[in-house]
């Protein structure tokens, strides 16, 4: 176990250290400063802007910016919905995969346009090569770019003084795609290929095994998709088991590259804020608060998984490997638990182990990560979710010390608090309301086990499966307790709706909030101003996140994972 802890700390440290220069690079790209990659990437950016006819001089208010975002997203949705609905007759379909039925297509496209990547199909049998490229890879780039753009616009608004405009949506999108995601994705994909992640248009390989059986081995254009699914906090894998599949994640080194890719952009965005606001100490404080939640969660999950399954240990087998059901030998429990926490706090949702088979309390950590959804968070949107909690913490602190709450020199008033509350309360409403609806359908159905066929596992774990599904949809995460038989009209439609609303409400409300703050004049700091860089405020923020963010979910945590742990096997 000792070496596994070294490996975990090494991964986290490597990501933190490299996120600092990347944060500076992001700031340079989005504030029009020169970078070392300009000679290669600027021409591509210019070409793309010219081809799409973007008026680069046009500056948008937050409303125009949000409108452009919605319009672009609607067309991406429609375009890709058509593709998966007719993929059977489109080219690049070497394995003869059929078209998606409407509710599955609705769910899949809503999932990928919202950066969720919840998958109610299995890649090997559900999507053609053409769809993997022109739907999955395409949406994984543009939705991550949308998140970055929304995040950057919010940062500009916060940093501004009596600011009307927040930038141009299409310019920001193009920059995020071409100058940030594309170069990172190419480097990561090449590293993954070197480890054995395939890139081929040839379809399944037909082998004759050593014992003489026929074996069809599904392959595809895997490496490019794995790279962007990791970097863009997307998480939608090429194959059903995601990065547990040896073709998506063949070696410990590929696992290092992929774990790094999950957290690198969400971490770098925190540093980028420091540059935009001209307050490096604020970024350091936010980063420290996030680490102070992320590290204990990781340590707890690793401990739970390393302790193994007591029911299996009781049979007398050698338990030193830990709880290995649903995990791969090359990663072991340590790197699997690290991934499970990292992928859920960041809204990524890729997995390298089956979360349904995690130990009860080990599986509670991914749920907590998605309930919070702001510890580094999704690219761009994670920072936005954190902003909401910062505003609330500023408000709470202001009340405690009896001063008008201020954030970055701007007064936080009733309008801002209403918008923050809207964004904050939508999350538990979608999760708890959705789970309650699913439980209701289950209980009113006669012989639900046969009629619905949803739950693979009995007892509290079955409840956790439904809870996890709505949590994942509302957090735009995309991982799952995959024992849930989720490819049914009920799940396809309800989680599809949850994903759409949970993507756009928590982007638009904070953008409106930031736009409202941006228009206000900046008041000079005085001795009486609440210093948000201070460790005191950091601790307050930490407490607000943990208490407000997790307490709402305490009852369901008790009904699911905690009950399962207490009941024992």
């Amino acid at each position, binding site marked *: 176990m000792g070496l596994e802890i*070294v*490996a975990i700390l090494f991964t986290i440290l490597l990501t933190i250290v490299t996120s600092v220069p990347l944060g500076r690079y992001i700031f340079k790209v989005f504030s029009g400063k020169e970078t070392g990659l300009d000679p290669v990437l600027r021409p591509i950016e210019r070409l793309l802007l010219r*081809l799409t006819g973007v008026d680069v001089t046009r500056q948008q208010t937050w409303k125009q910016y949000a409108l*452009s975002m919605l*319009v*672009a997203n*609607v*067309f*991406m949705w429609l375009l890709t919905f058509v593709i998966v609905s007719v993929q059977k007759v489109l080219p690049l379909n070497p394995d003869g995969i059929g078209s998606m039925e409407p509710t599955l297509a609705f769910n899949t496209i809503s999932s990928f346009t919202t950066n969720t990547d919840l998958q109610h199909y*299995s890649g*090997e*049998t559900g999507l053609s090569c053409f769809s993997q490229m*022109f*739907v999955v*890879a*395409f949406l*994984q780039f*543009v939705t991550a770019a949308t998140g970055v753009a929304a995040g950057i616009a919010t940062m500009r608004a916060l940093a501004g003084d009596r600011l009307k405009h927040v930038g141009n949506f299409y310019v920001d999108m193009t920059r995020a*795609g071409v100058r940030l995601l594309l170069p990172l994705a*190419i480097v990561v994909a*090449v590293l993954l*290929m070197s480890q054995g*992640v*395939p*890139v*081929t248009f040839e379809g399944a390989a037909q*082998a004759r*095994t*050593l*014992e003489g*059986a*026929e074996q*069809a081995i*599904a392959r595809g254009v895997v490496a490019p998709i794995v790279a962007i699914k990791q970097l863009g906090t997307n998480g939608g894998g090429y194959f059903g*088991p995601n990065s*547990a*599949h*040896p073709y998506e994640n*063949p*070696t*410990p080194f590929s696992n*290092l590259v992929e774990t790094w890719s999950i957290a690198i952009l969400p971490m770098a965005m925190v540093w980028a804020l420091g540059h935009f606001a001209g307050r490096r100490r604020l970024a350091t404080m936010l980063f420290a608060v996030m680490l102070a939640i992320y590290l204990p969660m990781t340590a707890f999950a690793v401990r739970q998984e390393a302790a*193994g399954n007591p029911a*299996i240990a009781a049979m007398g*087998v050698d338990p030193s490997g830990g709880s*290995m*059901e*649903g995990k791969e030998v090359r990663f072991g429990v340590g790197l*699997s638990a690290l991934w499970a926490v990292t992928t859920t706090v960041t809204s990524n949702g890729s997995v390298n182990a*089956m979360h*349904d*088979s995690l130990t*009860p309390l080990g599986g509670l950590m991914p749920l907590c990560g998605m309930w919070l959804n702001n510890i580094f968070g999704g690219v761009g949107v994670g920072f936005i979710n954190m902003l909401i909690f910062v505003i609330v913490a500023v408000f709470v602190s202001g009340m405690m010390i009896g001063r008008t709450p201020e954030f970055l020199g701007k007064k936080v008033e009733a309008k801002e608090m209403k918008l923050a509350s809207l964004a904050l309360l939508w999350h538990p409403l979608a999760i708890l309301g959705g789970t309650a609806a699913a439980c209701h359908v289950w209980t009113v159905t006669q012989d639900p086990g046969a009629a619905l066929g949803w739950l*693979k*596992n009995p007892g509290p*774990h079955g409840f*956790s499966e439904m809870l996890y599904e709505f949590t994942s949809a509302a957090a735009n995460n995309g991982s799952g*307790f995959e024992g849930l038989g989720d490819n049914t009209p009920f799940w396809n439609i309800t989680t599809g709706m949850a994903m759409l609303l949970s993507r756009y409400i928590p982007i638009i409300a904070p953008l409106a909030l930031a736009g409202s703050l941006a228009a206000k004049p900046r008041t000079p700091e005085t001795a009486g101003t609440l210093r948000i860089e201070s460790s005191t405020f950091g601790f307050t923020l930490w407490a607000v996140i943990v208490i407000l963010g997790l307490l709402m979910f305490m009852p369901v945590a008790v009904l699911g994972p905690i009950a*399962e742990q207490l009941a024992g*096997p």
Partner: protein
Amino acid sequence: MIREIRQGILFSLVAMALFGGVYPLVLWGIGAAAFRAQAEGSLLRRADGTLVGSRLIAQAFRRPDYFQPRPSGVDDNAASAGGTNFGPSNPDHLKAVRARLEAIRALDGVDPGEVPAEMVTASGSGLDPDIPPAAALGQAARVAAARGVPPDRVRALIDQHTEPALLGFYGRARVNVLELNLALDVSFGAPPPDARTGRPERRPGDPS
């Protein structure tokens, strides 16, 4: 508004061509030029060129003269991979684990304490190509007896095929089952051809 809509459509189409078309094609080109073997799936061929499998993908081994991989939730089906998704306290799961343990004890004559938990639990992908070194050593005596060769020579092969963790600390030490079994055939000759064809028989604990 019309301008917005036209802009949205145009941007979607151009971005789709770049990120959905050009990007994967560039990487496909890099793969074909620099990583040919990996790009096509790390496939392994016999001397006569027939495809025997992929070094990254587990295949079913049921005969006693071969090493066996970890249990699979999908019957080692490499065209539809997946785990069992059993929760840790699911009675069906524990029943399957117990059946696997009994089968290993009957086959290899080992104590339960010598069986690593990896060998009685299904992997995440159902296609885990590796087993822990201890799981290979636990099967060595059986494989040696079935082939009529000294166990020490089989153990030496396991040692040769044990891959340590990356830089000694990242990931876990492991043995690739297909490569080890290929090495068995090279060192000791292929076993007599099996009359059986098609899917191998089921093992205890396999999914129903």
